[in-house]
């Protein structure tokens, strides 16, 4: 179980976190979604002891991350946003050091290493130096490393950033498997589909504040099931409708580009914050909301 209680983090004058609280239940997969600089990494860094909170407290399975550091750290595995493997060392050596850090015996390390390299489909790369691996393979090594000591809680900070869709899906399956093995997981991501596909619940984070915590389904249903994107003076406008027919009926005859599609988490995020999670096509960040409504924002 993960509990964040009023986490505040200041860097000089900027307040990166402005009182963040949430709870992730045992075995739950919780996605933490927010634009660049919203404080996702900072939250994870506090909970994994890489930095101290300016105020507030975090608990991992009941252990305070500031007062009972070692016990708290014993609970968790971490995949950081940037790759932090020893480039000059082999995959095996990297994992071995990690196992030692978590007090695993030699045989336990060897067994876990084989098992988790198998798990991320890299059993044949044990003796390869990390610097010879591609970005996707490095990510997989990081996932194997974060899981090999069988942590009860796993933090994944954008584990699929910069990977192609096939490898991304592969990594999703590793993450799902870890959850099925009983791990409590907190995952941050920019990829909307990732959160939709994996998460039991999603927290929207914006400028250091949590905007909402809900299941992906409930968030999307709150907008109605369908969206109509249409091009208006170079900007994309989006309207929402309860069913496909009403969306199609609203297609303006005089306009060029349009798409009718299912509502996704990005729509929910925009509706709640007025911002996009990830800069994508048509990224001016404008849109309209309400079921078929004409409510312009920004």
């Amino acid at each position, binding site marked *: 179980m993960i509990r964040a209680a009023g986490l505040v983090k200041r860097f000089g004058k900027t307040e990166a976190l402005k009182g963040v609280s949430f709870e992730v239940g045992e075995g739950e997969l919780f996605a933490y979604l927010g634009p660049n600089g919203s404080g996702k990494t900072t939250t994870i860094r506090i909970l994994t002891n890489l930095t101290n909170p300016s105020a507030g407290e975090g608990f991992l399975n009941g252990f305070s991350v500031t007062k009972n550091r070692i016990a708290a750290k014993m609970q*968790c595995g*971490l995949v950081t946003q940037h790759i932090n493997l*020893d480039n000059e*060392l082999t995959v095996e050596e990297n994992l071995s050091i*990690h196992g030692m850090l978590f007090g695993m015996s030699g045989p336990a390390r060897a067994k876990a290493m084989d098992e988790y390299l198998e798990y991320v489909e890299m059993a044949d790369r044990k003796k390869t130096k990390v610097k010879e691996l591609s970005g996707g393979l490095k990510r997989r090594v990081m996932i194997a490393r974060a899981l090999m000591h069988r942590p009860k809680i796993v933090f994944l900070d954008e584990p699929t950033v910069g990977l192609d869709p096939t490898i991304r899906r592969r990594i999703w399956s590793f993450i799902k498997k870890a959850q099925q093995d009983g791990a409590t997981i907190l995952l941050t991501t920019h990829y909307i589909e990732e959160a939709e596909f994996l998460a039991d619940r999603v927290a929207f984070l914006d400028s250091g504040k949590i905007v909402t915590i809900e299941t992906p389904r409930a968030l999307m249903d709150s907008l109605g099931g369908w969206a109509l994107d249409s091009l208006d003076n170079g900007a994309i406008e989006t309207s929402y409708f309860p069913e496909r027919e009403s969306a199609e009926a609203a297609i303006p005859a005089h306009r060029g580009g349009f798409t009718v599609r299912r509502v996704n988490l990005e729509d929910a995020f925009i509706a709640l914050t007025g911002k996009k999670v990830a800069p994508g096509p048509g990224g001016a960040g404008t849109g309209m909301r309400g079921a078929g409504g004409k409510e312009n924002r920004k």
Partner: protein
Amino acid sequence: MTGFLAVYYRELLILKGKVLKQAASMAVSPFLFLTAFGYAMGRDHLVDGRPYMEFLAPGLVAMASMTQAFGIASEINISRFYWHIFEEFQAAPLANWQYVLGEVLAAVTRALLAVAVMLLLALCFGVTLSYSPLFFAAVILNAALFGSVAVICAMLVKSHADQSLITSFVITPMAFLGGTFFPLDRMPPAVKAVLSFLPLTHAARAIRAAAFEQAPPVFPYAVLGVLLAVFFGVAVVCVNQARN
């Protein structure tokens, strides 16, 4: 409780990957000093009643063990700023003292390797010293002390460039002035007083006494031991502070 072994093991693996290059580079400056100063001064130039080369060799041992032990600071920096490996240690259930101990053991290992290289060189120059347990005790104390200082510096600096400033302003002057190249008695009293505050001065004295089989001076060992305890403690605090 054995987490420090992981830190040490990692440093050994890194060292193993480049041990030949490292050993060769460890040989360069002692070789230059032995050639330039040892030979140049000639056999008949006596210092403290010995040929200068013989006087110089233990001083170079002190110098090599210091600079090589301090050298882990840049290893720590590379792994911290460049590879972000330090985060892996911070996120592991490892007490701060265990991290410091692991790095200090690595510093001592590097220093012993450098001293071995140095002694081989000295042998080539025809200098043999007495390598008693006391000799190695002094080398290890010196290396552990500067290993702790290296951890402190690595935690305090904000970039790799700051690190080389410390080397230029603190380590290099100490390497030359800390009783390595000349007996402190030749200095004016005021300078001598200042230099006697340098840990390397005491290391050089202890190492030289052991190398020449003189009665072991208690004071330098005591100073080194106390300073080691102090710097190790400060290093533990600095590792804790590095969390922000």
